[in-house]
């Protein structure tokens, strides 16, 4: 067998095994997107209720200034929560997040703020470590299946450093929003000082005048951290779904590329084999002719 033929066979074998791996990754990611979407759906009622409650309280306590809702007069530093994934194989997913985070950093630095990164996900952690950047919070190990406890841990750390003197004065979050299976966008948002987002159109008009147990201030004290936890939980869930979607897409194109490569190599291999056969035949024919000529010459 010719050297070229052997070489092509080997390459085809290796590309085939790669295709098997990427195909498996693609299938795993597809099944996980569905689960991640279900988790997003399951979190919707709580988010809706808590947003509703927060806006109701804030409407009636306009006079009450809560530390979490008031912008500091001279903000000096901003915390940026960057949500990346733990594993790669997800195309541009992490690169997009980190690019936006850098843009936000530039923007905040332009406003004269010191930027303090808080990073979720192993990919973001290694990115920061490689550049020897200081991180003020590091979490990993749950990017593809975040639990509420994870969100709570992050929120606690952020709120804690927001409350202390010379901690952080603003908190921004950079994550990937899940729009659909095909579309995921990087979203940059400020979560503190608080801006309450109404997820649905305020059709019910002005919320009723609530009685508070025990007092409006106490309710706000416990309600606002829960609200922030829920926002962060939402960001983690959306990022998880986006991660799986990005991975599925990346793995699908990898599988497609591998199959195309296999097709091209197979063609080349067949050509090489055919060329070898043709050559062999012409050698045999040539040899036989030479023998016949020699025999004819003797007579």
């Amino acid at each position: 067998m010719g050297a070229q033929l052997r070489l092509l066979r080997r390459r085809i074998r290796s590309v085939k095994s790669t295709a098997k791996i990427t195909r498996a990754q693609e299938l795993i990611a597809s099944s996980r997107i569905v689960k991640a979407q279900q988790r997003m759906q399951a979190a919707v009622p709580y988010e809706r209720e808590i947003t509703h409650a927060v806006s109701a309280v804030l409407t009636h306590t306009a006079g009450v200034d809560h530390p979490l809702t008031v912008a500091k007069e001279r903000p000096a530093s901003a915390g940026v929560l960057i949500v990346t994934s733990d594993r790669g194989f997800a195309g541009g997913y992490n690169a997009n997040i980190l690019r936006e985070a850098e843009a936000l950093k530039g923007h905040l630095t332009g406003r004269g703020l010191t930027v303090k990164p808080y990073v979720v996900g192993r990919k973001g952690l290694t990115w920061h470590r490689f550049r020897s950047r200081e991180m003020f919070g590091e979490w990993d190990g749950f990017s593809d299946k975040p639990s509420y406890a994870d969100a709570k841990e992050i929120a606690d750390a952020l709120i804690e450093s927001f409350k202390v003197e010379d901690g952080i004065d603003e908190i921004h979050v950079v994550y990937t929003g899940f729009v659909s299976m095909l579309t995921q966008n990087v979203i940059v948002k400020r979560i503190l000082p608080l801006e309450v987002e109404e997820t649905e159109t305020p059709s019910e008009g002005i919320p009723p005048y609530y009685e508070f147990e025990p007092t409006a201030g106490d309710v706000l004290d416990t309600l606002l951290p829960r609200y922030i936890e829920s926002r962060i939980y939402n960001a983690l869930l959306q990022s998880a779904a986006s991660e799986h979607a990005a991975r599925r897409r990346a793995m699908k194109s990898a599988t497609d590329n591998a199959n195309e490569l296999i097709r091209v190599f197979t063609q080349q291999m067949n050509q090489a084999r055919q060329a070898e056969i043709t050559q062999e035949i012409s050698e045999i024919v040539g040899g036989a002719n030479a023998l016949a000529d020699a025999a004819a010459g003797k007579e």
Partner: protein
Amino acid sequence: MAKLRVGVVSPERELWTGEADMVIAKTVDGEIGIMPEHAPVLGVLVEGGVLRVKRDGGADLVAAVHGGFISVANNDVSILAEKAELGSEVDVARAKDALQRAQASIEADQEDADARHKARRAAARLRAAGEEV
């Protein structure tokens, strides 16, 4: 008489929604009973409380609720719990075990806030499951 529309939700899922005649929950100020046409209230729930929803033509719905809020407006009652578990879902043996362990560590160290916390939670879960604590 009008009915209450009740929703019990935790961040990770919606536990239960439906109509009811009365909701009893424990806020930091004490027990609060909500019946239809109740004035709007927003209350902070205690850690390790038991929520009871009275329905006609059916057994009460009981749930262990750990922290969170109750909000009442226009006959809509929502219970937002950080963690919640329906009484029927409680693993009694595990909850008892957790309670015993927590009590043991309280006896060993009176200042152990974490163990007290755990004991309250376990007790609430047992009460929700209909056990005597």
